[in-house]
């Protein structure tokens, strides 16, 4: 086993901020969705924020730094199978960005988060609160979307659990510093790992895209027109 002594910067600041903000908001959504009562008001605000964050992340997947782009981490079936063959070995995976399975997990989570936030906008709790777009659908459709919102959360929770389990496996068994890398942006790799030429895009562009996503969400939610 070769030593992991090459410090390589892989995650840009926007990706890291997105990740940890999402973790915090997801936890709050779990809590507030269960707590009900006046917490529902904050559940909605937090949902708008998640929607803006996920929209931003989708944009960043096209216009962000190398390892943030979908084109860099959505691997073909061949790469996925090759990766899985070596998965259970105790040696590190030697991947600079997302590994092939992790990359698809990112996409699935983003899509389901989008569906979760999107259906939330049309949901009602049959007690006292409705999503901002509730008025555009029938009660029946809203009830169906609310039902989806309810069950899809558990799918997301299961995905989050699988994600954490996978990271734990990589950290504990394969000795990769994945958690640390999501804080610092730096991964420790060995000398053989192929490190592609990485282009880091300015965080100012990320801020611009996030503001764009946030404005879009506010326009959807507040409907000033």
């Amino acid at each position, binding site marked *: 086993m070769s030593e992991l002594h090459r410090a390589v910067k892989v995650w840009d600041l926007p990706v890291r901020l997105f990740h940890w903000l999402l973790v915090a908001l997801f936890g709050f959504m779990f809590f507030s969705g269960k*707590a*009900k*009562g*006046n*917490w*529902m*008001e904050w559940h909605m605000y937090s949902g708008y924020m998640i929607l803006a964050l996920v929209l931003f992340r989708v944009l960043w997947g096209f216009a962000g730094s190398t390892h943030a782009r979908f084109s860099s981490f959505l691997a073909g079936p061949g790469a996925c199978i090759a990766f899985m063959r070596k998965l259970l070995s105790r040696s590190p995976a030697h991947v600079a960005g997302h590994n092939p399975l992790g990359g698809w997990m990112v996409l699935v989570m983003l899509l389901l988060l989008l569906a979760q936030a999107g259906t939330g906008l049309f949901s009602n*709790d*049959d*007690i*006292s*609160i409705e999503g901002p777009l509730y008025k555009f659908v029938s009660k029946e459709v809203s009830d169906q979307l*609310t*039902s989806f919102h*309810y*069950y899809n959360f558990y799918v997301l929770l299961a995905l989050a659990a699988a994600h954490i389990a996978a990271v734990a496996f990589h950290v504990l068994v394969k000795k990769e510093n994945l958690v640390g890398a999501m804080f610092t942006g730096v991964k420790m790799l060995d000398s053989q790992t192929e490190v592609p030429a990485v282009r880091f895009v300015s965080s100012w562009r990320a801020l611009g895209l996030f503001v764009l996503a946030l404005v879009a969400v506010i326009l959807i939610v507040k409907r000033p027109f």
Partner: protein
Amino acid sequence: MKKKFLLAAVAVALGAGASFQASAQAKPEQLVKQRQSAMALIGWYFGPIGAMMRGDRPFDAAVVARNAGYLEVLSKMPAEGFQPSTKDEKATKAKPEVWSDKAKFDKAMENMQGEVAKLAQVAKGGDQGAIKAQFGATGKACAACHDDFRSK
């Protein structure tokens, strides 16, 4: 004292007789309709209070007090429609747990009635902050039952 006791016994007997009669005659689908109608009205009068508490519509203490007063009466109604004879009704979201865990269901129902009564009390005072706090507690009491006894 004896007379009072006798009167009370008669009242209880009459009351029991009256409710027995009502449930003996009511068809299951009527009972479902009874409780769904009560729930619909509860939603009708509770919703606007929520909109005011969130600032979606201007706070009007008189409307809050009126609605909360209605709700205090309405909150006592749905329980009556949850009779075992409605167990197999199709057009309802009531879960089988309503009957298999009756004690918990009854307790949740009572808890809700208690919170609504408090809301009606607080609403009379017209203090927006106090109303909001009790509104939240009442919403939680509603949700507690919806979570466990109502299909999603």
